[in-house]
């Protein structure tokens, strides 16, 4: 006589649930007859049979299954309510060889987490979602879920769910199956043995898809919460089989498992140097050492700059170039753009702060040291922000009458737009203004070393701002030189 164990505790479970507090270490925390337990067994069996326990992560949701990681002998993460799909995305992207199971309830998936879920489905993330639809918020004591049936009484729908008031139960499988990306979508029920066997196959198919990198699989389990629905075991199964399946029909909504090629995503980059190379331009030109400090007196304190004009005049990029110059000479810089909803034609301005010390706020709305103005409305609006000792530089091709100022300020102008037109490219007006600014600085504010440094610095900043666009860099350097020379002429004339 010999004996063979045909069905017993799966190796996919821990033998003893050490993490479970209290005296009971062999069974789970669910109520008697709960569907979560039935599904847990199917999952445990699948990960053990496929031999994937060492590379599987089960994501426990918020809900009754919040402690699912107590039970499965694989990796486990418990995530904030509804955020399963976001975490699953990170896991599967970071480790494409990993198997990821997103275990979610109907509140977790179809209410608070629905956007996360549907976006991950639409991206075809390579993982499986096991969605427990028990038509109720189990953990919190029986509130209405997005999947509660019409007429179903819950603590928050005491007269029964009314479509006119609470809308209709959400058909998650039907919605997901409409998307291109998901590979497999099926709804099953955790009721009779025949239905549980179908659920078992569905679990295995979804996990297999994940192993084969076929993409996103969703299995919805109509599941019992006999405690909150106040049913015994037979009534619970009857409710699911008779009532729930009327609105949530069982079956396969989509299955392209055999047709799909494995989805191989681009290999992620982890090397910090390579990430930096891809995201930030390399150090360019005659870069300075980290402790280099420009010596000119004006840099002893914070410099507050505002540039304003109409959108499309290059106001924002002029600000960026100036900020890049500051950055390349080891200043802290901030650049704060402000523009209307329209891309071009409205007013635009940006604030730049350059400081050796930390910058408190990036906003410049008073005590402005340098105001660069490219059109009349901006002049009227911002001139009062200029500090008593500030510099105003304006485009005299758009502003005919010079502004009246109280005295202490310095006012310069250049007909930048006209010059840009002659130069052949209106877009270069901003670089012409930058040339004008450099001329003013060289003539009045910089020491010898900084004077000699500025042309190269502008070239470096332009190269940084227009990475890889050599022609544009070259053209803007020419425009800068033009502005510089014209402005020198103007200053000399005064």
């Amino acid at each position: 006589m010999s004996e063979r164990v045909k069905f017993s505790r799966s190796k996919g479970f821990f033998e003893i649930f050490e993490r479970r507090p209290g005296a009971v270490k062999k069974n789970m925390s669910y109520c008697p007859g709960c569907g979560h337990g039935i599904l847990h067994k199917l999952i445990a069996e699948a990960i053990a049979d496929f031999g994937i326990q060492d590379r599987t992560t089960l994501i426990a949701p918020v809900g009754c299954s919040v402690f699912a990681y107590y039970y499965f002998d694989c990796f486990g993460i418990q995530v904030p309510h509804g955020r399963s799909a976001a975490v699953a995305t990170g896991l599967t992207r970071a480790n494409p060889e990993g198997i990821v199971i997103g275990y979610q309830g109907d509140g977790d998936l179809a209410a608070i987490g629905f956007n996360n879920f549907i976006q991950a489905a639409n991206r075809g993330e390579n993982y499986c979602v096991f969605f427990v639809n028990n038509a109720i918020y189990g953990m919190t004591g029986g509130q209405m879920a997005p999947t509660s049936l019409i007429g179903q009484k819950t603590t928050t729908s005491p007269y029964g769910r009314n479509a006119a008031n609470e809308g209709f139960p959400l058909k998650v499988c039907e919605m997901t199956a409409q998307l291109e990306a998901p590979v497999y979508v099926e709804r099953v029920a955790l009721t009779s043995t025949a239905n549980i066997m179908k659920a078992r196959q569905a679990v295995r198919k979804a996990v297999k898809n994940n192993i084969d990198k076929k993409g996103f699989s969703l299995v919805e389990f109509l599941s019992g919460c006999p405690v909150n629905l106040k049913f015994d075991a037979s009534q619970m199964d009857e409710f699911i089989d008779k009532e729930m399946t009327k609105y949530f029909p069982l079956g396969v909504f989509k299955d392209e498992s055999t047709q799909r090629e494995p989805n191989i995503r681009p290999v992620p980059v982890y090397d910090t140097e390579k990430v930096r190379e891809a995201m930030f331009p390399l150090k360019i030109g005659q870069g300075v050492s980290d402790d280099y400090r420009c010596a000119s007196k004006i840099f002893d304190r914070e410099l507050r700059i505002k540039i304003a004009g109409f959108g499309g005049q290059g106001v924002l990029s002029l600000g960026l170039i100036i900020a890049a110059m500051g950055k390349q000479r080891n200043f802290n810089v901030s650049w704060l753009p402000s523009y209307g909803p329209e891309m071009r034609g409205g007013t635009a301005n940006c604030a730049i702060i350059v400081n050796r010390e930390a910058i408190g706020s990036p906003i410049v709305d008073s005590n402005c040291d340098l105001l660069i103005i490219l059109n009349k409305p901006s002049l009227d609006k911002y001139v009062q922000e200029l500090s008593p000792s500030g510099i105003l530089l304006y485009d005299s091709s758009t502003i005919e009458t010079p502004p009246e100022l109280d005295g202490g300020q310095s006012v310069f102008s250049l007909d930048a737009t006209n010059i840009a037109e002659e130069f052949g490219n209106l877009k270069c007006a901003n670089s012409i203004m930058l040339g004008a600014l450099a001329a003013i600085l060289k003539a009045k504010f910089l020491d010898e070393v900084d004077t000699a440094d500025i042309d190269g610095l502008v070239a470096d900043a332009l190269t940084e701002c227009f990475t890889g666009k050599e022609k544009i860099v070259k053209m803007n350097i020419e425009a800068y030189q033009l502005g510089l020379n014209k402005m020198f002429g103007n200053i000399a004339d005064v």
Partner: protein
Amino acid sequence: MTGKIKKTHRVEIIADECKGCGRCINACPKKVLEMGTVFNFMGTTYAVYKGSGCIGCGGCFYACPEPGAISVIEISEDDNEVQQ
């Protein structure tokens, strides 16, 4: 040498792992499980095997929400062995 192999089955239910939900009893096609009358460690009655008639289908195992409350065991008996 060996005769026909005769297969029978039996179910083992661990009293303290059962929560007394009755799902296994409903699932059994042979109606060989029933709710006991004594209490377990948790203070609930638990399912028990009537002692014979199990066909080893596993229905009760999959119906049960607990990992190890139910095990189904297959017993193989050789006709010769039986005679010995």
